[in-house]
């Protein structure tokens, strides 16, 4: 232990901590604005237009300033410590997971060889923080929201892990950097990039399962039951205000980005350019990586403004009687494919 501590350079730690944080913060500001714009356009509106001049680009910044000024309300009967702690824990969970995401060929927070495992383990803490917030608020809506989300996240973790496992099976590595490096080049059918999703038909099924499960894991519509506004006020966030609420929002968006980036790494070649060596290199790699992740995020937003919400029983039905069996069958079939070819 002391050996490890001695080898750590504090400045390096700061830099490695700051890079994902900057990305998350900038992304959150843009994504919240973008989501409102997308919602507006889909509903034939314009969305925010006033703050900052061009299409209200500074709207999220203005909202952030407003949230900072708000009173930090803590209900009298709430469990104070847990109540205060929950939002930070939630953000910490999704932030910590960014350590193993390879942002470009030159940068990854931590080169651990169990990256995928670490990521899935750390994001499970999200469930805990949601229950924590729901329970500590001492409010029935919060509690119901927290319970729902716990059930949902625990259930949907299974198909997520099974579909990720399918990829790991094909790639033969738990390190996301290695998984990405495997996908370099354009060999499939002579022009398609070597992305895993093109490599074998079962991985397409795995991606569909993965995408549905990450929608549920990050509480996006049509699986936004934990915070269903129309039934549960705000779910586990009901009692939160000001910056603590903003932390939840930030964590949610960070989680969305994290899972989208994970999807981009596992199925769409991570930082690999779709044109082989053309537009390659670390910086372009970062660009391609973020582009792929953000496209998935945009699809998630697009779905959000299209579909209504599922009922709790439907949600559980989809997970336990369709996604989980399908993902396991898929896993076995992929294994067979790997053995045969």
């Amino acid at each position: 232990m002391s050996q490890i501590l001695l080898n750590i350079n504090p400045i390096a730690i700061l830099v490695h901590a700051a890079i994902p944080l900057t990305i998350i913060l900038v992304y959150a500001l843009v994504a919240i604005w973008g989501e409102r714009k997308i919602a507006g356009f889909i509903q034939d509106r314009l969305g925010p237009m006033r703050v900052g001049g061009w299409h209200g680009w500074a709207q999220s910044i203005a909202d952030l300033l407003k949230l900072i000024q708000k009173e930090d309300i803590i209900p009298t009967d709430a469990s104070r410590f847990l109540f205060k702690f929950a939002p930070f824990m939630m953000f910490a969970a999704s932030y910590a997971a960014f350590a193993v995401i390879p942002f470009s060929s030159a940068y990854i927070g931590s080169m651990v060889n169990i990256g995928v495992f670490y990521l899935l383990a750390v994001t499970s803490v999200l469930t805990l923080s949601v229950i924590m917030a729901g329970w500590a608020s001492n409010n029935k809506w919060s509690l119901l929201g927290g319970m729902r989300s716990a059930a949902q996240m625990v259930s949907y973790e299974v198909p997520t892990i099974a579909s990720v496992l399918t990829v790991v099976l094909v790639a033969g590595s738990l390190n996301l950097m290695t998984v990405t490096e495997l996908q370099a080049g354009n060999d499939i059918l002579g022009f398609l990039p070597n992305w895993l999703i093109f490599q074998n038909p079962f991985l397409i099924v795995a991606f569909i399962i993965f995408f549905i499960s990450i929608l549920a894991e990050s509480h996006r519509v049509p699986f936004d039951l934990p915070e269903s506004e129309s039934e549960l006020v705000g779910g586990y966030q009901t009692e939160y205000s000001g910056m603590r609420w903003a932390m939840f929002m930030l964590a949610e968006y960070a989680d969305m980005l994290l899972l989208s980036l994970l999807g981009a790494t596992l199925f769409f070649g991570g930082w690999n350019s779709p044109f082989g060596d053309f537009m390659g290199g670390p910086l372009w790699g970062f660009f391609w990586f973020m582009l792929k992740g953000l496209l998935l995020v945009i699809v998630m937003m697009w779905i959000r403004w299209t579909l209504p919400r599922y009922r709790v029983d439907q949600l559980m039905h989809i997970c336990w009687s369709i996604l989980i069996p399908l993902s396991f069958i898929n896993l076995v079939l992929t294994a067979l494919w790997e053995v045969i070819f």
Partner: protein
Amino acid sequence: MLNAVKQSWLTFRSIFTGMGVTIRHFFGKSVTLQYPDEKMELPKGARSRLFVNIDDCIGCNLCARACPVNCIDIETVAATQDVDLGKTSTGNPKRFWLTLFDIDMAKCMYCDLCVHPCPTNCIYMVPEYEYSEYDRINLVYHFSNLEPEMVAEVKVKAELEAEQKKRDREEMMRKKAEEKAKKELEEKKKAAEESKKEDKEEE
């Protein structure tokens, strides 16, 4: 099993249909009007703020009487003989000073009933709807353009004239009464003379 496949197929089909609809709207034109910057033209006959073209008003009080909520307050003073208030643009002669013409827009319910009776079409609605105020008293619109001194002056003048008229009338009445009395007296005299004559003839 087969059912589940069928269901899933249906689900995916409806999801993609829905997403197709939303993406079409995404690229479609938005219907938003950037309100304070651009405004919609009010349709013809829209009810909005009242306006009185006070130069054309003849003070007939018809609008005030038509108003169901009594929010029009009119006070008129008859013009004296020495002034000519002119004519309205519709050719009606003006005979009254409008010393007060207030419309309380806070009370007004935009029924449009005051607009139609006006003989000179001088009270009407203008396409103006942004006139909220912090104090309700500011919603009382004053349309009379007379200065307070002017109001006082015309009132005094009108009173004087009215008194003069009254006196004149009394004078006239008195004269008439005198004349009548004279006539009666003469008639009596005549009658008396005639009766005398008759008496004589009879004798």
